[in-house]
């Protein structure tokens, strides 16, 4: 292993607002048609970025509304019915339209072909189609939410959703059903691409761990999503025709819905988490300038999480009428998921050990991920324990736990990844000082929001209630802490939004490899040309083989970075 070469190279000062000197995917052609009909995976990724960001902020607005209501014990801001809709909309938008597509559809789409040295994903048309399907699903759901709203919670539990709810369950369900096909097609595309499109020399164990994580995610996409799609469809049918499958009065079993729902929705947690873990692996290696400790273990732990993730869904149903014997089995297997997760955390820590660590923004998010995921994961083990779960089931303890996983884990990874690859995506650097500040604000805001909720839940505050007793003053103290944390986090989210947009025009030009990192994606220009590499790269090095900077080089003539960095000469594509 080579030594670290000081701080990352400083980006070049370029005249602000000037267009890129080289032809790339962004300036290859212009016009709305060139975007909406594009088959380029990089442009499709940006289409996803725009739409996913929209849903994220919309979901965030609902979150703020929920927190404002809970500042006072009385249900004074909104009625209970409205409150039900608020948390349902927050959940539906965040889970189905932000967390699940975020990293795979944006960063995965953008980076998988670049990282394996391919010109595009295997099925570019399918890729564009899946964006349109995503948008169709999103619009249907939005229509349902805005015209009448849904009050079932994002879980759509029967028989409430099928028999009693007055919301627009059918329309919202249809939106989620349609959206599911977007996930399936994306996963299919990824797996085929990773299998068949790798550049010469890019063997399975030279793949970046980001690719392994996305491979595992795609398995869940393909084998889990069809089940939720048809289950949601059945809820709609049950409402429309009263077919009886979930209706006890007709001999049906509402718990069957929970089985089928969680068969997908528990693995869906790993859809959110695994790509983040992939990002963390990349970032930790780059910013400690070391090979990932135990590469093979980390790679296979992703696959193991994807497989084990399918075996544990029953731990969401300990207090339903699920048989206690099945509960024991599910509880036991749930603990098994902790093993591959712990393998990852231990290996990241071991990678940091004696590394040459620099605290750039992506690294801050990666470190935050490790800590917050640890808390989220450990409290997950509490909840997987049968006896304790009965005590804290459906309380704020659960809410805090899964927000530590989904926000503290998935979102931190997403933000870290966005910062890490932003120079590659846009060819511009974001302002490092502001970015570090925002990372700090988000971290503080996040913990202030959700840590008090662990305490609230343990004291018995149930989830999905818009009011709580006045005579328990400590509850209000904790709720106010949580609300103020949410406000801080909300502001923290706006800061990256502003400086990312700012940097697209005014940021400094990024070099091909600003960090510098080892992956193939860093060996083409920033932003990359439409076909990614001038010539098909031939890989002769292992993953994360850090070497002195003079030796890294850029592949392909004509795709040189805006200006060579000191000691890093673009060459004609021959490898050392």
């Amino acid at each position: 292993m080579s030594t670290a070469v000081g701080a990352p190279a400083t980006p070049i000062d370029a005249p602000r607002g000037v267009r890129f000197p080289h032809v790339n995917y962004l300036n290859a052609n212009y016009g709305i048609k060139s975007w909406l009909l594009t088959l380029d995976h990089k442009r499709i990724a940006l289409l996803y970025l725009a739409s996913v960001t929209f849903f994220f902020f919309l979901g965030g607005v609902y979150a703020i509304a929920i927190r404002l209501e809970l500042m006072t014990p009385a249900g004074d801001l909104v009625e209970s019915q409205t409150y039900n809709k608020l948390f349902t909309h927050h959940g539906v938008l965040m889970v189905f339209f932000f967390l699940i597509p975020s990293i795979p559809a944006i960063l995965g789409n953008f980076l998988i072909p670049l990282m394996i040295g391919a010109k595009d994903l295997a099925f570019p048309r399918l890729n564009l189609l899946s964006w349109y399907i995503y948008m169709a699903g999103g619009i249907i759901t939005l229509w349902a939410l805005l015209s009448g709203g849904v009050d079932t919670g994002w879980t759509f539990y029967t028989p409430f959703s099928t028999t009693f709810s007055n919301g627009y369950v059918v329309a919202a369900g249809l939106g989620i059903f349609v959206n599911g096909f977007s996930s399936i097609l994306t996963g299919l595309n990824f797996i085929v691409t990773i299998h068949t499109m790798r550049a010469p020399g890019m063997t399975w164990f030279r793949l970046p761990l980001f690719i392994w994580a996305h491979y595992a995610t795609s398995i869940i996409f393909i084998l889990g999503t069809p089940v939720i799609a048809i289950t949601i469809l059945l809820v709609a049918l049950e409402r429309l025709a009263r077919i009886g499958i979930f209706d006890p009065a007709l001999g049906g079993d509402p718990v069957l819905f929970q089985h089928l729902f969680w068969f997908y929705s528990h693995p869906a947690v790993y859809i959110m988490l695994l790509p983040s873990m992939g990002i963390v692996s990349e970032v930790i290696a780059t910013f400690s300038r070391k090979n990932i400790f135990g590469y093979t273990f980390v790679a296979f732990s992703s696959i193991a999480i994807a497989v084990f993730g399918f075996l544990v869904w029953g731990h969401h149903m300990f207090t339903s009428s699920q048989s206690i014997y099945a509960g024991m089995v599910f509880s036991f297997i749930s603990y098994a998921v902790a093993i591959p997760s712990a393998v990852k955390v231990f290996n990241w820590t071991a990678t940091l050990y004696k590394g040459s660590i620099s605290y750039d923004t992506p690294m801050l998010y990666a470190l935050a991920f490790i800590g917050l995921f640890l808390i989220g994961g450990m409290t997950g083990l509490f909840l997987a324990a049968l006896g304790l779960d009965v005590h804290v089931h459906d309380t704020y303890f659960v809410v805090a736990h899964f927000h530590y996983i989904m926000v503290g884990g998935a979102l931190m990874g997403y933000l870290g990844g966005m910062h890490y690859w932003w120079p590659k995506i846009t060819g511009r650097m974001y302002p490092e000082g502001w970015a570090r500040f925002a990372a700090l604000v988000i971290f503080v805001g996040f913990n202030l929001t959700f840590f008090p909720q662990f305490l609230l839940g343990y004291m018995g505050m149930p989830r999905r209630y818009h009011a709580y007793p006045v005579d328990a003053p400590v509850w209000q103290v904790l709720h106010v802490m949580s609300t103020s944390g949410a406000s801080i986090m909300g502001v923290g989210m706006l800061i990256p939004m502003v400086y990312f947009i700012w940097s697209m025009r005014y940021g400094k030009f990024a070099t091909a490899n600003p960090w510098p990192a080892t992956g193939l994606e860093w060996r083409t220009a920033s932003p990359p040309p439409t076909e990614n590499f001038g010539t098909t790269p031939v890989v002769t090095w292992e993953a994360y083989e850090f070497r002195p900077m003079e030796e890294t080089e850029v592949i392909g003539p004509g795709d040189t970075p805006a200006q060579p960095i000191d000691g890093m000469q673009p060459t004609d594509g021959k490898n050392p």
Partner: protein
Amino acid sequence: MSEHIVPRKVYFVVFGALMVLTALTVFAANIDFGVLNDVIAMTIAVTKAVLVILFFMHVRYGSRLIMLVVVAGFFWLAILMVLTLSDYNSRKWVEQRVRQSTIPSEAGR
């Protein structure tokens, strides 16, 4: 192309087998074997499906990767089935336990 071309004869033989098995499944269904009826019907159906997959769909001549995808598809279906049914089939045990533990106390009252 490196793909394997299956001779027509194989297709006809498989076709014949499928037809015979269809007749067999109808015949077997009309005889009462008790629980075995389902076992027989499913064995025949699985045999037919395997024949179609191996020969008509060329998996016998294809790569191991394709084989892996096929196995994964059915393996995940098995996960869904087995774990869900583990709940349904063990619910009676819970009911039995509940009955055993409550009846004496009610009688005592």
